[in-house]
């Protein structure tokens, strides 16, 4: 559906304007330094194990006749993410590099496979066009799997994420029932928004839909950081938000906010690949499983304890 | 062979015919004044002669070279671009509103075309331009910009600009109409001086005394026709046609005729 719309738009604009009246520009600037793209040369410090891994990967790939040369050791693995989505993906103050729980996992994964990781911050609204057009290999950024099962080819879920309600610390809101007559906000196109708006038609989401109707107003906003600043300023009374993001805001602004006990919904995070790209998914899953099995994932997630991430992790827990 | 020759020219703007089958010849060294009321077609005739306007019918020749001729259907056909470019070098035009190039200095207004159109040497052209400015009483104004000059000075620069192209003849389109009355004298003086030097000139003007004084021949136009043509003392002092008399009567009170 989205693809069709994009096609239509592109076709229209193409026919109307851009092909012919634009031909003369653009082709120069060959010495243009491409935008800020942080690439991690994982291949450079490949150890023996890594090389072995790569060899295995290459072997496995040679048996499948794939369209894309996804199997190459030394290939670039481009992760699309929202750089305003801590703690999953954000800009590190010290190094200036993009980091986050998901990106750290991706770094380790690329190191093991001998791939070069490219962290590509994207406009989250354009994520489908980005992944379909091949500019990124996957969306790995606290990406909600629940409810989008059919839209992408998914890894196994690795984080259990609840949607919660965050309020100002001194707010009189204690339960979901208290939200009646209040002004509530969520990030546009976020899973919290989906949880409040999505009507599957089978009554399964009626509770949340009713809850939303009890609000005085419900709005969406460009990003959660804005939402929290707005709530702090009194514009909104409550924010529907992924728990990890909420924990991050609570930690960064001590004593300003709190989270209601009742979650809005529970959902899971997984890594999204372009629909049909099972080959790449399988390679990523394989290495991720190894990382979970040998405790590397636990090591990485320990660095995000303040956001409650270790409790939310489900990969390698009971398998 | 006449220096300038326009034959049987007709010109219409939509339904309005502004020139009816007009012919004018100008000989080397001759000064011709064209007079007539507004809308008489005299400016259109000048614009057709200088090819700023295209003719519907009629032919146009300079020094016997054809700039435009009638085809079999009797409609005007112009010569090739290369021929026209050469022929345009034979004449210069001085506008009512000067039309100096405001972004060029006075000197560059004069030298730009000789250098870049006629491909003459810069030094030679600049020397000639300075001499021309001196002759026009504009010495020391070389580096000024047009807007720093008075109207009369600007018009003298415009005349100098036309002359620096070394044309065989000059057209003037009401050269004093945009000037304050006290400034017209300096322009008329310059034109008189050119007449004494035997410059061939066609002047569209409202200055009757000047026309009578400087012109060898006067053409009176009205309604797109040449009503009367002849020596200035005949046309201006003793007009035969009623319309000429009526037109000149309007100037009688100004005393300029008998000046």
């Amino acid at each position, binding site marked *: 559906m989205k693809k069709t719309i994009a096609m239509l738009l*592109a076709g229209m604009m193409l026919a109307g*304007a*851009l092909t012919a009246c634009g031909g003369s520009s653009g082709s120069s600037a060959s010495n*243009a330094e*491409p*935008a*800020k793209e942080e690439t991690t040369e994982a291949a450079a410090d490949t150890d023996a194990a890594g090389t072995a891994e790569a060899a295995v990967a290459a072997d496995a790939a040679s048996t499948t006749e794939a369209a894309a040369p996804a199997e190459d050791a030394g290939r670039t693995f481009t992760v699309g993410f929202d750089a305003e989505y801590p703690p999953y993906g954000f800009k590190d103050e010290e190094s200036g590099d993009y980091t986050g729980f998901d990106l750290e996992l991706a770094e380790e994964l690329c190191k093991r496979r001998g791939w070069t990781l490219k962290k590509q911050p994207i406009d989250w609204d354009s994520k489908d066009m980005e992944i*379909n057009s*091949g500019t990124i290999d996957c969306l790995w950024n606290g990406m909600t799997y629940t409810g989008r099962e059919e839209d992408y080819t998914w890894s196994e879920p690795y984080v259990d994420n609840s949607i919660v309600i965050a309020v100002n610390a001194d707010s009189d809101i204690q339960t979901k029932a208290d939200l009646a007559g209040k002004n509530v906000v969520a990030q546009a196109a976020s899973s919290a928004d989906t949880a409040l708006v999505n009507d599957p038609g089978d009554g399964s989401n009626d509770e949340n839909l009713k809850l939303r109707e009890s609000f005085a107003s419900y709005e969406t906003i460009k990003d959660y950081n804005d939402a929290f600043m707005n709530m702090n300023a009194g514009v909104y009374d409550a924010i529907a938000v992924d728990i990890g993001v909420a924990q991050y805001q609570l930690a960064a602004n001590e004593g300003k906010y709190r989270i209601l006990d009742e979650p809005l919904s529970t959902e899971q995070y997984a890594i999204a690949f372009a629909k049909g790209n099972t080959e790449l998914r399988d390679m990523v899953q394989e290495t991720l499983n190894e990382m979970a099995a040998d405790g590397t994932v636990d090591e990485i997630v320990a660095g995000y304890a303040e956001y409650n991430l270790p409790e939310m992790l489900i990969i390698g827990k009971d398998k | 062979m006449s220096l300038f020759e326009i034959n049987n020219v007709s010109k219409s703007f939509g339904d309005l015919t502004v020139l009816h089958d007009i012919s004018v010849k100008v000989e080397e060294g001759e000064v011709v004044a064209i007079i007539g009321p507004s809308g008489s077609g005299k400016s259109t005739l000048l614009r057709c002669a200088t090819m700023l306007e295209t003719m519907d019918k009629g032919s146009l020749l300079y020094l016997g070279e054809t700039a435009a001729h009638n085809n079999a259907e009797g409609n005007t056909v112009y010569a090739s671009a290369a021929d026209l470019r050469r022929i345009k070098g034979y004449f210069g035009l001085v506008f009512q509103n000067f039309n100096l190039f405001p972004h060029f200095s006075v000197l560059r207004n004069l030298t730009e075309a000789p250098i870049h159109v006629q491909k003459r040497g810069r030094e030679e052209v600049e020397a000639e331009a300075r001499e021309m400015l001196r002759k026009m009483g504009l010495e020391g104004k070389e580096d000024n910009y047009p807007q720093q000059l008075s109207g009369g000075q600007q018009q003298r620069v415009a005349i100098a*600009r036309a002359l620096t192209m070394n044309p065989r003849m000059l057209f003037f389109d009401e050269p004093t109409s945009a000037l304050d009355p006290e400034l017209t004298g300096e322009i008329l003086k310059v034109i008189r001086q050119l007449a004494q030097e035997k410059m061939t000139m066609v002047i569209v003007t409202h200055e009757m005394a000047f026309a009578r004084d400087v012109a060898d021949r006067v053409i009176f136009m009205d309604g797109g026709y040449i009503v009367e043509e002849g020596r200035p003392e005949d046309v201006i002092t003793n007009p035969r046609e009623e319309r000429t008399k009526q037109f000149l009567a309007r100037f009688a009170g100004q005393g300029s005729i008998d000046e």
Partner: protein
Amino acid sequence: MGFMSIVQQIIGGFGTTLFIFFFTLLFSLPLGILFALARMSKFKPLNWFMQVCISILRGTPLMLQLIVVFFMPFYVFGIKLSAGWRVYAALIGFSINYAAYFGEIFRAGIEGVPVGQHEAAEVLGFTRAQTFWKIVFPQMVKRVIPPVTNEVITLVKDTSMAFAIAYVEMFTLAKQVAAQQSSITPLFVAGLFYYVFNFVVAWAMGRLEKRLSYFE
């Protein structure tokens, strides 16, 4: 969180913003002249075509145009996009869009040059090209400085739209730092950068205008 740390992080993005800014001007100003000439062409099909182009470029959001330019090769021609394409797509999108605006400004500027200037040039024997470049163009430049200044200042701010195609410039970076710090300060810092830069742009254009004030 240090203020200097914020400035340091944002300053990297400022380079990208400047890069988009200068290259967009470099391409869109000459392209704008071509657009203006095509728009005024006596050859009707070209004239109409240009009118439609300009109408679309001015009538649809720049962000949409950037997205269309960037994704078009894939969605229309099925070409897989490479990472390097982002910068070219951004420059093409910005340049064409701004050329449309500049084109209309230039057209008004060219048409504002009195017809007497053309006639004087014609009588003196200048070719059409000479008339345009020697006589009309310099006078047009003077006329269009104020509206062009407006567009240039808008361009400085519009560079933030490059992120629609994931080309990270200063404002996006500032938002990322804002998210990292959970603070609004980085956005003010970015605002300060824009303001100072636009102040310089306005000053430079003002000087240019003054330099051309010797004629009217």
